[in-house]
C-alpha cells in the first residue's frame, strides 16, 4: 500500500507522445493511377468506339441544331425578322435573352481555366478542358442571336470598323459596339487559350495513332510538340500570361453586356449593381452547365478517378456561393428601388414581381436562389441526382433571370399606350431549341475527337510528379515532408535556390 502510494508520487509522468493530426488534402487523382493509365483512359475516349449513349444523344441533338438553327434562321432570313415575337416596344425579346443566357454560360469555363489557375487551385486541371470547350460552344451559340437580330444579317459587317463607301463610322461611345469588341475578343482569346492548352495532349494522341489521316490531322494541330523542357518553359509562361489576360477579360465581357442595359435610362435597368450582378450570375449559370455536362460524361467514360467527388463538391460550393450573391443582388435591387423613392423605378419592380410575368419571377427566385441552398448539406453535394437536379434548375433559372430583366421591363415603358403582353413566336422557340442542340452536338463532337481531360496537367498534379518526390520517400516525416526534403537538399547543397 505504502509502496504503491510512494510510487505514484515519485514517478514522473512519461511525456505522452503528442502527434498532431495531419490534415491531408484529398488526392486529385484517385487509386494511385499511373501516368500511363491516365493517358490510356483519356485517349481511350477518343480512340475507342463511342458508347451507344453518344449516338443516342448526338443524332437527336444534331437534328435539333439542323432544324432549329439551320431551318429556323433560313426561314427568318428569307421572310424577315417579323417572324420573331419582337415588336416595336419589345425589340429585345427572346433573341437577346438567349444571347445573354449563352454568353453567361461561357464564363465558368474561363473562370476555371484562368482564375483558378492564378489562384493555384489544382483541382481545376481535370475539368478545365471540358469547361473551356463549353465556353467556346456557348459563345458560338450566343453569337448567332445578335448577328441575326440586326435585322438584315447581310449588313452585319457594318458592326466592324471597316472603311466603307458611305464613309460612316461606328459609334465607339455605344455599349453595343463595346459588346461587339468584348464578345469577339472573348471568343478569340478563349479559343487561343483552349488550343494552347490542348497542344501537348494532341501530341499524345498523335503519338498513339497509327499512320493515316488521323495521325496527320492530330500531327498538324499538335504543331510538332515534343515535350521539350525548353518549350515547356516558354509554354508555361504563355499559359500564365493568357490566364492573367483572360481574368480581367472574362470580368469585362459580362460587365459590358450589362452596360447594354445599365447605360440606358430605362427603369429597372439603370442601376450600377448590374456589372457585378451579371458577372456573378454568369459564373453561377456556367458552373451549373459544367456540372450538367461533366457528371454524365464522367460516368459514361469512366473518368471517376480523374473527376472525383471532390471536384463536384467544389463546384457545388461555388454554385452555392455565387447563387447567394445573385440572391443578394435580387434583394438589393428591390431595396434600392424602394430606397431611391423614384416612382418609375418602384413601379418597374412592382410590375416585375406582381405583373403578368409573376411566374417568371417566381421561377427565377426559386431556381436561382432557393434551389442552390440545398448545397449547404453535404449529403446533397454527394448525391449526383441532387447535383444534377439543382444544376438543371439553375440552368433554367438563369434563362428566366434574363427573361425577367428584358421582357418585363420592355413591355411596360413610359407610355401606357405601348403596354402589351409579349409572346415568343414559334420561330423564337425553334431557334433557341436549335442552339441547345448545337451546343450539345458540338460538345459531343468535342468528346469524340479531342482529349476531354487535360492529360498533361492531370499528370502534373500527381504526387510523384514533384521533383523532390524521391527525397520525400527517403525521409518521410509526418506530413511536413516537402520542407524537410528541401532542408535535406540544402544540406547536401543540391537544392535550387
Amino acid at each position, binding site marked *: 500500500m505504502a509502496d504503491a502510494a510512494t510510487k505514484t508520487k515519485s514517478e514522473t509522468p512519461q511525456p505522452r507522445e503528442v502527434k498532431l493530426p495531419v490534415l491531408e488534402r484529398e488526392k486529385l487523382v484517385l487509386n494511385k493511377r499511373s501516368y500511363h493509365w491516365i493517358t490510356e483512359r483519356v485517349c481511350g475516349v477518343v480512340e475507342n468506339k463511342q458508347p451507344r449513349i453518344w449516338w443516342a444523344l448526338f443524332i437527336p441533338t444534331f437534328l435539333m441544331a439542323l432544324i432549329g438553327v439551320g431551318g429556323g434562321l433560313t426561314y427568318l432570313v428569307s421572310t424577315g425578322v417579323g417572324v420573331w415575337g419582337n415588336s416595336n416596344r419589345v425589340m429585345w425579346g427572346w433573341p437577346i435573352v438567349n444571347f445573354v443566357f449563352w454568353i453567361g454560360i461561357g464564363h465558368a469555363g474561363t473562370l476555371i481555366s484562368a482564375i483558378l489557375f492564378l489562384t493555384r487551385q489544382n483541382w481545376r486541371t481535370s475539368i478545365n478542358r471540358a469547361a473551356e470547350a463549353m465556353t467556346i460552344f456557348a459563345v458560338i451559340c450566343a453569337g448567332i442571336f445578335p448577328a441575326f437580330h440586326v435585322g438584315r444579317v447581310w449588313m452585319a459587317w457594318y458592326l466592324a470598323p471597316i472603311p466603307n463607301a458611305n464613309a460612316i463610322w461606328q459609334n465607339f461611345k455605344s455599349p453595343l*459596339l463595346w459588346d461587339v469588341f468584348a464578345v469577339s475578343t472573348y471568343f478569340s482569346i478563349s479559343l487561343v487559350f483552349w488550343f494552347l492548352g490542348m497542344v501537348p495532349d494532341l501530341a499524345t494522341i498523335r503519338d498513339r495513332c497509327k499512320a493515316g489521316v488521323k495521325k496527320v490531322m492530330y500531327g498538324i494541330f499538335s504543331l510538332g510538340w515534343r515535350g521539350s523542357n525548353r518549350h*515547356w518553359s516558354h509554354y508555361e509562361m504563355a499559359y500564365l500570361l493568357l490566364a492573367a489576360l483572360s481574368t480581367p477579360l472574362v470580368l469585362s465581357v459580362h460587365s459590358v453586356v450589362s452596360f447594354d442595359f445599365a447605360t440606358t435610362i430605362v427603369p429597372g435597368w439603370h442601376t450600377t449593381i448590374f456589372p457585378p450582378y451579371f458577372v456573378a450570375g454568369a459564373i453561377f449559370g456556367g458552373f451549373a452547365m459544367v456540372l450538367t455536362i461533366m457528371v454524365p460524361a464522367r460516368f459514361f467514360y469512366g473518368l471517376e478517378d480523374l473527376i472525383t467527388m471532390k471536384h463536384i463538391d467544389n463546384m457545388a460550393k461555388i454554385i452555392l456561393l455565387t447563387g447567394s450573391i445573385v440572391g443578394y443582388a435580387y434583394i438589393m435591387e428591390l431595396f434600392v428601388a424602394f430606397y431611391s423613392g423614384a416612382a418609375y423605378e418602384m413601379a418597374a419592380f412592382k410590375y416585375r414581381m406582381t405583373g403578368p410575368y409573376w411566374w417568371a419571377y417566381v421561377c427565377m427566385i426559386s431556381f436561382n436562389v432557393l434551389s442552390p441552398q440545398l448545397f449547404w448539406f453535404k449529403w446533397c453535394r454527394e448525391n449526383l441526382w441532387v447535383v444534377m437536379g439543382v444544376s438543371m434548375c439553375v440552368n433554367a433559372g438563369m434563362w428566366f433571370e434574363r427573361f425577367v430583366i428584358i421582357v418585363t421591363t420592355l413591355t411596360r415603358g413610359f407610355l401606357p399606350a405601348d403596354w402589351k403582353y409579349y409572346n415568343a413566336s414559334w420561330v423564337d422557340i425553334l431557334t433557341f431549341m436549335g442552339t441547345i442542340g448545337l451546343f450539345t452536338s458540338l460538345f459531343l463532337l468535342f468528346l469524340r475527337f479531342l482529349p476531354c481531360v487535360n492529360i498533361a496537367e492531370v499528370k502534373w498534379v500527381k504526387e510523384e510528379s514533384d521533383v523532390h518526390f524521391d527525397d520525400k520517400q527517403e525521409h518521410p516525416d509526418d506530413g511536413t515532408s516537402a520542407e524537410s526534403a528541401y532542408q535535406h537538399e540544402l544540406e547536401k547543397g543540391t537544392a*535550387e535556390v
Partner: protein
Amino acid sequence: MSTTVKRVYGYLAEFESASALYKAAEKVRDAGFRKWDCYTPYPVHGLDAAMGVKRSILPYFVFFGGMTGLATSFFLAYVTQVGIYPTVVQGKPANIFTVPAFFPIMFELTVLFSGFTALFGLMGLCQLPRWNHPLFASRQFHRTTDDGFFIAIEARDPKFSAEGTKGFLGEIGGANIELVEDDGN
C-alpha cells in the same frame, strides 16, 4: 537519289522518374553541355533551374503586343469619332473628353493583341510548328507524351563525343541509351 550519309543527331537516354530526371539534369548542366534538352510528359517544375534555363522572355513580347493593341484601338476610336466622323448621340461630346468612352474597346484590343502575341510569340520562341524532328525517328521517343522522361544531348554540342557522352548518360542513371540519327529532312 543521292547517297545518304546519315549524320548523328545525338544520344537519347531514358530516366525512370521526374526526380531521377531532375538529378540527372543537374549533372548534365554541371558537365557544361549546352545543346541538350529534357523531354517530359508534363511541365516538370524546378527543371528549368536544374537545366540552367533562363526565365522565358515571352512577357516582353506580350507587353509590346498589348501596347500595340492599346495604341491601335485608341487611334481607331479617336480618329474616326473625333476626327473624320463625329457621331453626336445624346449630346455627348466629340473631342478629347470622349476618350473615357473608348476605354472598354481599348481594354479589349489590348487583351486581344496580347493574347495573339502570346500564342505566336510562343510558337516563334519554340520554333514551332516543326512537324519533323530527328527525335521522332526514335523507337522509344513516343513515350515522352505518355510516361517517359528523356534527356537528349545533341551531337553539335562541343563537348559531345561518340563514346564519352554515351558513357556519361549511363553514369548519371540513363537507361535505353539510343543513338539518334539525323536523316537530314
